C-alpha cells in the first residue's frame, strides 16, 4: 500500500471537504485527521456494546472490558512497551505530564533537587514543572538549542557530571520539537541520565505518528503522548511508565476503579495501570486509540517516516526558493520530523495564515504552545506547516503557490 494520496479515501475529511480543490490539510502537528477505522471503532462501541468496563456481569460488558484492554495491548505493542500494564490512559499528553509531576516527581524529588528540561519544550512539558518547582522548591534547568540548526546544545562528555553536580533527578525532554521539527537524541541522553541516577521522561506527542518509537530502545522511564495527534480520538492520551516505577508511585487521582479494599474510613489501591485510572475511563476513546495504533502499524511506521521525510525535503526545497521565506531549524530532513515552521519577511504570521486559509491551505500560526522557544528566536509567532501520512506533494505545491501569491500581493 502506498501513502499520501493513495490513503486519502480512508480519511472521510477528504471526501467531505467543501473546498472545490480538495482538502489541503497541513496542520497535523496540531491534530491529525482520523481514519475510518478509528471512527468505526468509536461507533462500534457506542452502537454495539456501550457498557462499562471491569464490572462484567454479562457478555456485553465483558466485550467492553476485552476491547478496552486489547486497545491497551495494541498501544503497548505499537510503542515497544514490555507489557500492556505499562500503558496508563490519560486525557492527553498534558495530563500525562501532570501525572508524572504529581505522582513521581512530586513524591520522590526533594527540596533543592533539579529537573532538566529544554528551551524547545511545549507548554505541556513546561508548566507542570513550574507549578511543582514552586511547590517543592525544586530547581529547573534548561538545555539550550542552537537557533540556526534547532538542535539541542549539550556536552555529552561532561553530561553525567553536569547532572550530578546540579542534583538533577529527572530529565524531561521532547523527542521531536513541535516547532523546529528537530528529532532529539533521546537514547544517548537517556543513557547518560541513568548513569547519573536521573529518571527520563519523554514527550512523544510529535513523535508517535511520525517515526518508529520503541520506548525501551529510547531508554524512556516515562513516555507521554496524545491520541488525537496519532489519528486517534480527542480526549484520550497515554502515559507509558516502566512497570517497576509505576508500581512505586502513589495514585494521581482517587475514586472508583482504582481501589482494592474500601472501608468507611480507609482504602487501599490497585496495582498499575488501574491505580492511575480513577473513575470510568474514556472507554470509546481508548478503543479508538487502539484502532489508530493498529492502523499506523498496518501502514508501517518505517514507511510513514520515509514518506514524510520525502515530503519535508520537498517542502524545504520549495519554500526556500520563495524570496523572503525563512525556514526555522535544520535543513536536513534526516534530522527533523513532522513540523516545519517558517517566517515570511515583512508579513505577520497571522496574515500569512489567513491568506493561506483563504486559498484553502490550512497551516497553523502563533506560538504553537512553545512561547519560550519563540522568545529565544526573538519572534512573536511563526507559521507552521506539518505533515502526516495522508499528505502528498500536491499539498505542498498548493502551499508554495499560496505563499507566492501572498508575496506578490503584499510585496507587489
Amino acid at each position, binding site marked *: 500500500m502506498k501513502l499520501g494520496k493513495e490513503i486519502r479515501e480512508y480519511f472521510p475529511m477528504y471526501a467531505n471537504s467543501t473546498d472545490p480543490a480538495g482538502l489541503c490539510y497541513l496542520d497535523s502537528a496540531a491534530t491529525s485527521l482520523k481514519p475510518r477505522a478509528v471512527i468505526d471503532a468509536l461507533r462500534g462501541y457506542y452502537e454495539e456494546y456501550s457498557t462499562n468496563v471491569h464490572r462484567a456481569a454479562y457478555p456485553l460488558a465483558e466485550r467492553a472490558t476485552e476491547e478496552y484492554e486489547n486497545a491497551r495491548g495494541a498501544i503497548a505493542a505499537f510503542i515497544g512497551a514490555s507489557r500492556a500494564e505499562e500503558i496508563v490512559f490519560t486525557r492527553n499528553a498534558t495530563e500525562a505530564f501532570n501525572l508524572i509531576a504529581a505522582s513521581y516527581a512530586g513524591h520522590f524529588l526533594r527540596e533543592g533537587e533539579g529537573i532538566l528540561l529544554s528551551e524547545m519544550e511545549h507548554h505541556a512539558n513546561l508548566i507542570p514543572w513550574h507549578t511543582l518547582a514552586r511547590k517543592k522548591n525544586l530547581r529547573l534547568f534548561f538545555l539550550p538549542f542552537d537557533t540556526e540548526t534547532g538542535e539541542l546544545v549539550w556536552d555529552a562528555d561532561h553530561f553525567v557530571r553536569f547532572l550530578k553536580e546540579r542534583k538533577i533527578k529527572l530529565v524531561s525532554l521532547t523527542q521531536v520539537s513541535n516547532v523546529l521539527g528537530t528529532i532529539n537524541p533521546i537514547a544517548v541522553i537517556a543513557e547518560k541520565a541513568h548513569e547519573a541516577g536521573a529518571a527520563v521522561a519523554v514527550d512523544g506527542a510529535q513523535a508517535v505518528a511520525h517515526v518508529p518509537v520503541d520506548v525501551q530502545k529510547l531508554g524512556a522511564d516515562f513516555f507521554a503522548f496524545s491520541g488525537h495527534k496519532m489519528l486517534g480520538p480527542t480526549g484520550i492520551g497515554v502515559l507509558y511508565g516502566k512497570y517497576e516505577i509505576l508500581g512505586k508511585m502513589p495514585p494521581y487521582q482517587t475514586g472508583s476503579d482504582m481501589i482494592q479494599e474500601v472501608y468507611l474510613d480507609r482504602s487501599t489501591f490497585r496495582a498499575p495501570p488501574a491505580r492511575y485510572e480513577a473513575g470510568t475511563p474514556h472507554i470509546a476513546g481508548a478503543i479508538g486509540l487502539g484502532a489508530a495504533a493498529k492502523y499506523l502499524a498496518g501502514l508501517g511506521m518505517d514507511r510513514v517516516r520515509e514518506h514524510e521525510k520525502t515530503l519535508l525535503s520537498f517542502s524545504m526545497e520549495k519554500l526556500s526558493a520563495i524570496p523572503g521565506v525563512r525556514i526555522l531549524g535544520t535543513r536536513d530532513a534526516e534530522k527533523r520530523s513532522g513540523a516545519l515552521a517558517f517566517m515570511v519577511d515583512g*508579513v*505577520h504570521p*497571522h*496574515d500569512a495564515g*489567513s*491568506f493561506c*486559509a*483563504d486559498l484553502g491551505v490550512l497551516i497553523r500560526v*502563533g506560538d504553537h504552545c512553545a512561547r519560550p522557544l519563540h522568545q529565544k528566536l526573538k519572534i*512573536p*509567532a511563526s507559521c507552521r506547516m506539518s505533515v502526516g501520512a495522508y499528505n502528498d506533494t500536491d499539498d505542498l505545491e498548493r502551499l508554495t503557490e499560496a505563499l507566492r501569491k501572498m508575496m506578490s*500581493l*503584499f510585496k507587489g
Partner: protein
Amino acid sequence: MTLYRQEIIERWRYPRHRGIMQSPDGQGERVNAFCGDEITLFLRLDGEKKFVREARFTGEGCALMVASADMLCEAIEGKIIDEARRFSADELLLLYGEPPTPGRIPCVLLAHEALRQALAGLF
C-alpha cells in the same frame, strides 16, 4: 480574496494616519495578548475641545490591525467628541468590509479598544 482586498493591503503598506503625536489630548494603548500585537492611539482636539481634530496611531501588528487602525483614525477625525464615543466596534467592522474570521476579529478591533481608552482619558 476576502480579508485582504486591495484597500486593506494599501492601508497596511502606506497607512495615512500612522505616526507619533506630541502632547496629545488623549492616548490609548492596547496589546493583543493572543498574538502580541500592540497599538498606541493618539487624539488631538480642537481649541475648544469639542471635536477630534487629528487621530494618529503607532504600533506593531498584522495587516488587519494596521489597516483597521488607519480606517478608524480617518473615520473619527472631524467627529464631535460624543459622536466619537458613539462610534461602535460594529461600525468599525462594517468599515472594514468583509467580516473577518472569528479568530481575527480582535485584530480589527484592537484600535477601537485603544480609541475607547483614549476617549475615556480625555476629561
